[in-house]
């Protein structure tokens, strides 16, 4: 059988969730959702199942590794605007107000302007893509995102030939967002990609996960997902996208330039001053209770396992220098 070029080579058979089990989980979730809806006791939970995602196309190249349980993906988050502890973003999720939401498009393009979230999203068909997510802190998850290629969005604004980079900005709301009351990072959070990285077919604009709208702690209502880069590149709760000629500032690089480069591609051979990047702890709920303490880490793959797809972007780059 010919291997899909999007599939990672290093997945053992035991890592793959049998389809029957996967479907059963789905049925269970659907039934649970119905039951809750029927009792009418937890309306907020019942409405979390998003009708926009009812007939989601499944991206054919998704990884079949065990998915991180919803609970873990939505309660263990780095989103410093909502607090620096992993549990803070969920606790403080309500402090992020996502309605109304608009996104400013700026810089080197034919159609700059302020667009409502509805205008941004309307023309795009969503699909579900299961990606590995590798945090620079040496843990990783497997997440079924709902979204569409960033390239499809960017092309609508007709970037010109000066658009060498794309920069992104997270919401700034010092009054409400508890994390922004401290200068832990420079606010607002900013990130950036080279234009070819931004236009790469793997680069995703996400609006949901696990078939539901993005919870606030995961970057509602609109976030980036760049699966071959460390997680902090995948900027959350985006309010501004600019096409620029010079390499833009990125928050972690401003905070500690020796530790976080502009590229921040997942690379097990370039070690970081805080965490060895050779291995990662996969958070997928496979071991629970005290056994979770003794679960082994796994080796980190070059470009987080997306080497075949993205290595071509960096053939002229010294990865030790441009970490």
């Amino acid at each position, binding site marked *: 059988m010919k291997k899909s070029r999007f599939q990672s080579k290093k997945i053992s058979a035991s890592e793959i969730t049998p389809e029957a089990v996967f479907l059963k989980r789905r049925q269970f979730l659907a039934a649970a959702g119905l039951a809750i809806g029927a009792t009418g006791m937890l309306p907020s939970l019942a409405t979390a199942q998003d009708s926009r995602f009812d007939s989601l196309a499944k991206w054919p190249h998704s990884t079949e590794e065990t998915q*991180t349980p919803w*609970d*873990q993906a939505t*309660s*263990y988050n780095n989103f*410093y605007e909502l607090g*620096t502890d*992993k*549990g803070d973003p969920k606790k403080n999720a309500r402090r992020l107000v996502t309605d109304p939401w608009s996104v400013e498009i700026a810089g080197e393009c034919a159609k700059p302007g302020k667009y409502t979230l509805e205008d941004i999203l309307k023309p795009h068909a969503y699909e579900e893509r299961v990606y590995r997510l590798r945090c620079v*802190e040496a*843990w990783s998850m497997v997440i079924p995102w709902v979204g569409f290629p960033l390239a499809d969005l960017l092309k609508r604004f007709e970037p010109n030939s000066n658009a060498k980079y794309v920069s992104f900005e997270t919401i700034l709301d010092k009054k409400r967002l508890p994390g922004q009351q*401290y*200068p*832990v*990072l420079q606010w607002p959070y900013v990130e950036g990609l080279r234009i070819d990285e931004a236009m790469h077919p793997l680069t995703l604009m996400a609006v949901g996960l696990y078939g539901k709208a993005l919870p606030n702690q995961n970057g509602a209502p609109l976030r980036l997902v760049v699966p071959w880069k460390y997680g902090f590149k995948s900027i959350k709760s985006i309010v501004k996208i600019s096409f620029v000629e010079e390499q833009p500032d990125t928050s*972690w690089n401003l*905070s*500690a330039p020796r530790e976080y480069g502009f590229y921040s591609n997942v690379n097990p051979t370039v*070690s970081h*001053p*805080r965490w*060895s990047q*050779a*291995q990662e*702890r996969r*958070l997928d709920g496979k071991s*629970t*209770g*005290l056994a*979770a*303490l*003794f679960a*082994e*880490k796994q080796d980190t793959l070059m470009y987080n396992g997306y080497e075949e797809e993205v290595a071509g972007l960096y053939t002229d780059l010294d990865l030790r220098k441009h970490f």
Partner: protein
Amino acid sequence: MPASQRSLPMPQPLISAKGLIKPATFLLCLLPVALAVYAVSQNRLGANPVESLLQLTGDWGLRFLLVTLAVTPLQFIFKWAWIARLRRMLGLFAFFYAVLHMVIWLVLDHGLRWDLIVQDIIEKKFIAVGVVVVAGLIPLALTSNRFSIRKLGTRWKTLHRIIYPLTLLAVVHYLWQVKANDIYEPLLYLVVLMILLGWRFYRLLKH
């Protein structure tokens, strides 16, 4: 036993309420790790319990170092004579949590992969500092008994004064470990340490 060696004050015999202080403190000191392990068994310590336990044991190691250093000031300021009897136990709990912190790092976090462990110690100075702290606490723990006090005489006090630089290094270990400018907690510990050292310095000047 020669009379000269009897000059050290012996602790009071244990009596009812006072006698309960020590065992109660012992159990209280074990509580953080006991509760955490129970929480892990119930899947209640978050998605990454190894990271949580590593943080928790590090926090408590540093806290117990500071609590140990607070015994003498408390004893003098509030005239709490009884608290001196807890000093050794509190110091040993600082050692216990520091060792636990390191063992969790070696075994649970690094799976005893010595190549990665050595690389980390060489490459990351905050880890090297942490190793120095645990290594430095070993002779203090080993001599935290009446026999060693008697045997070492005045050198015992000199030896145990290294708890001051070791605690400072423990704070540095924490400061260098935090990301971005999230330094409020280690700074708080630094302030507490400065107060505890400042009180000693002030007393030294007065006498």
